[in-house]
């Protein structure tokens, strides 16, 4: 009941006209940018960060909530309507959704994705509402050793599970940790790795790491191998009232709920975020499908869109649970959100619900509002999103570079940040090219300093006894879970590689990558090497 009252108070804040407009704007701009090909949720949030620099904290967080949900949603439109494989979180949606669109059922695919996102987002936000305060109360009792255990879990799961190989993920994590070391160390006031450069004394802002890796690095990488020629967007029938038939609905509602049930728990634990959840949901739907639907998998089964898309959005809400209650970002997007919190002097964590209760509940209320706005906006506006998809690529990437420059310069109004941004961007370009995941680097950059703080607090308490790190039952459970997650994750990756390489009925542009091991192409050879690697 306690949280209900608080939630109602949150709604009274979030429903004020100026905040409602903020949420509407956030959802709209988040979707518009998220629809842009090549821009995932993390880049959407990173690029739009300057928008929040001058708002008050409540407005900024509400804007962020809208951008976050909108960016998540926008990706599914891209992967359904664009003729090429999309961002990782919604790539399984692309498998079925893209083929539905090709078969002239793009409208149904978009509708089931939109309604599934709404259902999953709302259910997951309800779960967040009731779980988060309890978790925060428990979390207050955690000591520094427990926090250190949680951060180590986040490090290793993000580092080991994202991307194609464990060592590459750990290199990415390590590079992020090194960047996190740069600057003045808090406890002793010593400068570390600043090379005497004054502007490095404040450290390297996580925004620079995120925008550099995602926006600049991605642009350079795409530019190096740009697909030339006209953009192929699959046409969608007008008349959104008749988008879903009764039969579509009958086949969709169970996958929506199952996707939510799979996505939310996976989002809450540090296990690689939405990527894992969408894949698990896809595998589950494929296995559960019977008769006609089973034959449709691989040729555009609506279950294969409804389930993964719901799982994706439920996981996005689930990620907010550790973020708000423990202050732990478990995805790159969450790492950027946490840096936005920090720029307002707000420290997410167990005390957030006590100290900043009004702010937190306004944020949670705006999640509900954002979900409603998304479904109201997105189905009728699909014509606009299609136009956005058609933006000529030279202008699109020129624009991304310009906004990345704005994000860097607006941090301190100093061009040194612009230079740092380009340096990080070049690293991001090389990482993409050589198959290193970039998300662990962002997470390492933000969690590294937190890990050191907790470790040093623990050591101060225990007078240097390392056993103190495993003295509490909580820490022991955390390290035990870590082992389970890593083993399960590696197993899952093998399964995924097998599923992706199993023959698919209709080879299309979108499935060319998945089918590649069969064909003899450059990416096929790479994919074969990748699978060999996960098998070690």
């Amino acid at each position, binding site marked *: 009941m306690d949280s209900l009252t608080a939630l109602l108070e949150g709604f009274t804040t979030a429903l004020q006209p100026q905040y409602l407009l903020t949420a509407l704007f956030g959802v709209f701009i988040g979707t518009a940018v998220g629809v842009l090909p090549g821009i995932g949720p993390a880049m959407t949030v990173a690029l739009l960060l300057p928008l929040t620099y001058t708002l008050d904290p409540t407005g900024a967080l509400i804007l962020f909530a809208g951008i976050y949900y909108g960016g998540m949603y926008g990706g599914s439109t891209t992967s359904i309507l664009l003729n090429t494989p999309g961002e990782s979180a919604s790539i399984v949606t692309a498998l079925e959704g893209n083929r539905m669109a090709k078969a002239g059922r793009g409208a149904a695919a978009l509708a089931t994705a939109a309604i599934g996102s709404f259902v999953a987002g709302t259910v997951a936000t309800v779960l967040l509402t009731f779980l988060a305060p309890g978790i925060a109360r428990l979390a207050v009792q955690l000591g520094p050793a427990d926090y250190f255990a949680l951060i180590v879990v986040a490090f290793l799961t993000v580092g080991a599970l994202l991307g194609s190989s464990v060592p590459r993920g750990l290199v990415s994590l390590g590079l992020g940790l090194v960047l996190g070391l740069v600057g003045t160390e808090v406890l002793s006031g010593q400068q570390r790795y600043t090379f005497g450069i004054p502007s490095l004394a404040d450290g390297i802002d996580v925004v620079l790491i995120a925008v550099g890796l995602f926006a600049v690095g991605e642009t350079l990488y795409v530019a*190096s*191998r740009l697909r030339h020629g006209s953009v192929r967007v699959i046409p969608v029938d007008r008349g959104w009232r008749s988008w879903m038939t009764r039969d579509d609905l009958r086949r969709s509602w169970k996958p929506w709920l199952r996707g939510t049930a799979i996505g939310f728990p996976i989002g809450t634990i540090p296990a690689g975020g939405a990527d894992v959840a969408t894949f698990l949901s896809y595998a589950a739907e494929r296995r559960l499908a019977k008769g006609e639907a089973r034959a449709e998998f691989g040729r555009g089964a609506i279950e294969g869109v409804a389930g993964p898309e719901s799982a994706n959005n439920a996981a996005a809400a689930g990620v907010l649970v550790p973020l708000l209650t423990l202050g732990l970002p478990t995805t790159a997007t969450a790492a950027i959100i946490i840096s936005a919190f920090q720029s307002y002097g707000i420290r997410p964590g167990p005390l957030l619900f006590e100290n900043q209760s009004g702010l937190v509940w306004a944020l949670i209320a705006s999640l509900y509002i954002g979900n409603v706005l998304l479904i109201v906006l997105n189905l009728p506006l699909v014509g606009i999103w299609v136009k956005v998809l058609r933006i000529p690529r030279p202008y699109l990437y020129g624009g991304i570079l310009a906004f990345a*420059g704005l994000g860097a310069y607006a941090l301190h109004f100093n*061009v040194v940040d612009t230079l740092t941004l380009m340096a990080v961007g070049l690293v991001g370009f090389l990482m*993409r090219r050589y*198959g290193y995941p970039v998300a662990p680097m962002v997470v390492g950059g933000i969690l590294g300093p937190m890990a050191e703080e907790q470790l040093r607090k623990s*050591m101060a308490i225990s007078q240097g006894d390392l056993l103190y790190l495993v003295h509490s039952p909580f820490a022991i459970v955390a390290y035990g879970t870590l082992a389970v997650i890593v083993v399960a994750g590696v197993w899952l990756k093998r399964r995924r590689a097998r599923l992706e390489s199993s023959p698919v009925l209709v080879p299309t542009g979108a499935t*060319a990558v998945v089918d590649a091991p069969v064909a003899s192409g450059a990416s096929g*050879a790479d994919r074969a090497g990748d699978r060999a690697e996960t098998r070690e």
Partner: protein
Amino acid sequence: MTSPTPTPFGADAPEGALPPSRPVRAIGEYVFAGVALLVGVGTIAGAGAIRVPPGSASVLGPRAFPYAVGVLLVLAAAAVLVGLLRGRRGRPDDGEDVDPDAPTDWVTVALLVAVFLSQLLLIDLAGWPVAVAVVFGGGAIILGAKRRWAALAIGLALGLVTQFVFGTWLGLSLPAGPALNWIPIFHG
């Protein structure tokens, strides 16, 4: 280390469209992993140089965590190098706009970096709108925009709009530059 080791998986068997670029990429992979290893070594070496204030009360000084980070990076990079020797290659990212068969176009990358870094001078000397026009227009032209004047014009428009929205309306102190400073809405 200049030629890729043949692999049992056929991971880099020269098949398909671009056999010439395959060995080149292998060199790049070794270099990247090698540099990561060196960064790790540098982190360990640099940790020793961090000054520990005398009489510091904390048990764990400012050096311990950097040592750990350096060791992690060295071990991970070494594991990648060993994997490379055994033929475990990285898989380049997919993307909607990435042509999987295209070889890497380093000239385009270098030109984009140069255009972006023009901001280092242009923001302060010529002002934000001009800097955006150069980055957007230059970037679009490098990436193959068909009408060059349109790319520059859109860039300038984008620069003016962002100057107005972020500078005037949201209050970020973006320098308008000598060409615009006399216009009241852009000033200050």
